[in-house]
């Protein structure tokens, strides 16, 4: 440490500017024993001890999640998780949030969110083959929300399309709690040879640390800490990151080619907290030290301080650890892809992360101080009384509907923003590139992709119902896992791994911590029961605006595997097929779209969920599809069975006649029977000649089943009500047709 650096004084309270508490600063002083941190060190602590990097509030509870199975090749801890999908191949995947940047600058925030998650995947050596996204906005009657919605979608498309990675699925939900605090979660899936997975562990003292990709500017200074405090607009100081997908495409190709050469010892992308976290992480994972000189970092701008270089969140950069002999080869490949590289440091033996500025030490701290020594918190948890009251409000206190009303109510629900067609969204995403998309968005419950050169395939879906999570975070989290898994099962694939993004409010408030704590337990229990290990994830806390926290949204992405992708299912039935409802759950209006859309109310208990019944109905459905008996399956979710049937009719462009009796036996109330929501229920269509075999499978699987009708014609007949399929389609298409105003910033 130079004298100057060691002597520079930290101004009283300066730690608060990097979002460290007084106690945390005291802890840093304890760790350092004899001295104060330098300004660069303080900034690095601020970033590494942020929620985003340090998982202060979540590390203790995330330990509950099951992460292991025979087929798990990589659990949490690396840039992404990985599962074995057979034929010597692995699927690598993860979901990540970019909520706060998207709230400030929606196009670039969403675009760089995609860029970040894609880098996580190719950092593992995998070629990205699919992107999914999960979005939450406030209602579209407010221009700001329209602006956020339009630009987030455009940003996701703008980045992913340019990269040539298909965006094949996702989830959009509107709720007033997301006004001003949208959620933008992006998931990426990649494929790599199982023995070709790369880890971000530096090793080999004397090996070189290289930086490749974009030059470093003052982008997003303190993004990591900024993602960890309320009200991003007030606390934001650096410049907004502007993504460059063209550069990322070159970086992707260069990195994958570099990994082929065997020259690369470790690779780590630069994401939140930039050079700080990437350097600390490769050193700490590898149990070695790292010494880098910021003066050797190529800059986009002049006059940047070492602090700024260490904190910059400029996009499209990658850190490599390479052997000295391989440096020339690395340079050749990097140049081939029109990029440049710089050797910025070396791997050392002393466990220190040492930062130099043209040879002068400006920071020198053991890597583990930034990582292992990061404090963790278990906070007080108390449920908000307001939410308890909402849950205890019985939706049955409203009068039931008459069966004559169901047509009008159904059309209303189909045209509601949470149920209507997502085509205006997914049409902006290239979902056919790479020529693997077997089931594109809008056709099935999960996206289905083939693996070229193999019979295998994968399916993926991402889900969460924030209303359920608000009313009961534990139960809501069970539903998130169950629904994503059910969607994958409805495609015919076997769910093999999950990833999650915990979007919550302020964990330092008892009501916020309660939600987080309960939801994680729910995720853990559901993953265990459904046998889908959680191989990775991401946390976004402090999602609050001045007035209120968001409805909690633990988004769950699941990847499933097909041994034979030709045996898959969609939502499309054909005329003459018989329709069966598999499973038997009790529909309820608690937390339903019906209640919210029609009566403006979020109340009651969300649908109950019996995890073993859920596992059984999913397994039985998969068996029907694998055996080639069924190629049509769709689960009952938002809007209940009436909405599920209407969507199937529209996608099939074919009507059906539904027997009233089969539906009405579900409840003593018509509103619950038709529009009540449930879990563990799947509608399938089957040729009449195969019905005996369906019944046999159901009996063997211990799954109840009900015949509910027959497909055919141009009309959907629900008991006494008959609706033209084209009318249903028009209602669905109306939902996201935006008012003829351009949203404004």
């Amino acid at each position, binding site marked *: 440490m130079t004298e100057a650096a060691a002597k520079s004084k930290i101004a009283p309270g300066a730690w608060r500017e990097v979002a460290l508490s007084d106690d945390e600063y005291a802890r840093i002083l304890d760790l350092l024993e004899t001295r104060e941190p330098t300004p660069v060190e303080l900034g690095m602590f601020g970033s590494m001890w942020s929620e985003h990097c340090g998982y202060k509030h979540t590390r203790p509870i995330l330990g509950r999640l099951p992460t292991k199975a025979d087929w798990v090749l990589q659990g949490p801890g690396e840039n992404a998780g990985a599962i074995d999908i057979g034929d010597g191949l692995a699927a690598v995947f993860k979901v990540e949030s970019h909520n706060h940047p998207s709230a400030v*600058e929606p196009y670039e925030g969403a675009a760089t969110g995609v860029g970040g998650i894609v880098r996580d995947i190719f950092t593992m050596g995998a070629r990205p083959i699919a992107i999914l996204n999960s979005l939450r906005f406030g209602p579209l009657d407010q221009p700001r929300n329209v602006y956020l919605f339009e630009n987030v979608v455009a940003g996701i498309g703008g980045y992913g399309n340019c990269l040539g990675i298909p965006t094949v699925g996702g989830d959009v939900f509107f709720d007033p709690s997301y006004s001003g605090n949208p959620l933008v979660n992006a998931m990426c899936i990649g494929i790599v040879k199982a023995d070709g997975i790369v880890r971000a562990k530096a090793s080999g003292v004397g090996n070189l640390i290289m930086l490749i990709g974009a030059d470093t500017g003052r*982008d997003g200074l303190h993004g990591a800490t900024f993602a960890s405090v309320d009200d991003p607009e007030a606390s934001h100081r650096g*410049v*907004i990151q*502007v993504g*460059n997908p*063209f550069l990322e495409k070159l970086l992707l190709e260069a990195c994958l080619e570099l990994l082929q050469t065997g020259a690369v010892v470790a690779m780590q992308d630069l994401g939140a907290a930039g050079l700080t976290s990437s350097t600390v992480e490769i050193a700490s994972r590898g149990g070695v030290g790292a010494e880098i000189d910021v003066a050797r970092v190529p800059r986009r701008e002049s006059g940047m301080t070492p602090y700024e270089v260490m904190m910059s969140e400029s996009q499209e950069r990658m850190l490599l650890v390479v052997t000295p002999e391989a440096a020339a080869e690395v340079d050749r490949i990097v140049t081939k892809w029109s990029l440049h590289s710089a050797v910025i440091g070396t791997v050392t033996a002393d466990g220190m992360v040492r930062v130099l500025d043209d040879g002068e030490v400006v920071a020198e701290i053991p890597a583990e101080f930034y990582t292992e020594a990061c404090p963790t918190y278990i906070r007080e948890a108390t449920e908000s009384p307001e939410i308890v009251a909402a849950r205890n409000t019985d939706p049955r206190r409203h009068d039931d509907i008459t069966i004559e009303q169901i047509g009008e109510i159904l059309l209303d629900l189909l045209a509601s923003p949470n149920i209507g067609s997502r085509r205006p969204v997914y049409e902006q995403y290239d979902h056919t590139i790479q020529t693997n998309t077997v089931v594109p968005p809008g056709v099935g419950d999960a996206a289905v992709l083939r693996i070229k050169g193999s019979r295998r395939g994968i399916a993926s879906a991402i889900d969460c119902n924030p209303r359920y999570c608000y009313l009961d975070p534990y139960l809501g989290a069970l539903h998130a896992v169950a629904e994503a898994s059910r969607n994958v099962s409805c495609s015919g694939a076997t769910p093999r791994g999950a990833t999650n993004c915990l979007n919550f409010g302020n964990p330092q408030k008892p009501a916020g911590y309660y939600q987080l704590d309960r939801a994680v337990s729910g995720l853990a229990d559901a993953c265990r029961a459904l046998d889908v290990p959680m191989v990775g994830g991401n946390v976004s806390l402090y999602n609050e605006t001045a007035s209120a926290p968001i409805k909690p949204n633990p988004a769950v992405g699941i990847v499933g595997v097909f041994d034979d992708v030709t045996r898959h299912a969609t939502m499309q039935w054909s005329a003459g097929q018989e329709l069966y409802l598999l499973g038997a759950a009790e529909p309820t209006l608690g937390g339903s779209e019906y209640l919210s859309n029609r009566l403006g109310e979020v109340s009651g208990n969300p649908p109950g969920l019996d995890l073993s019944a859920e596992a059984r109905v999913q397994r039985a459905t998969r068996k029907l599809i694998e055996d080639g008996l069924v190629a049509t399956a769709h689960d009952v979710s938002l809007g209940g069975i009436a909405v599920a049937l209407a969507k199937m009719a529209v996608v099939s462009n074919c009507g059906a006649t539904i027997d009233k009796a089969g539906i009405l036996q579900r409840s003593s109330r018509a509103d619950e029977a038709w529009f009540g929501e449930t879990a563990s229920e799947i509608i399938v269509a089957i040729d009449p000649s195969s019905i005996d075999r369906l019944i046999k499978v159901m009996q063997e699987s211990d799954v109840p089943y009900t015949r509910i009708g027959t497909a055919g014609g141009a009309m959907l007949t629900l008991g006494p009500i008959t609706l033209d399929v084209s009318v249903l389609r028009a209602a669905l298409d109306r939902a996201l047709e935006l008012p003829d105003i351009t949203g*404004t*910033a």
Partner: protein
Amino acid sequence: MPKIGVNDPEGEAIRGGLQSLGYTVVERVRAGRHYRLHLSAPEADVARATAEEMAHKLLANPVIQTFVIETVIEAPEV
């Protein structure tokens, strides 16, 4: 125009393109938008003030962009 300090991939790509055509004298390129609005106003100052308002509200994104306004007076069509 992108604000100072804001990454400008388009400008960079154009500079790269010009360089490869041999225009190595070009040191920097910034890429922005240009909108020509026709409006009738009693005088130039009013038009400018309106344009300024519109730029703030819709035309420019203050998070990443700056703008300048130029007024050109046309004789009213008769």
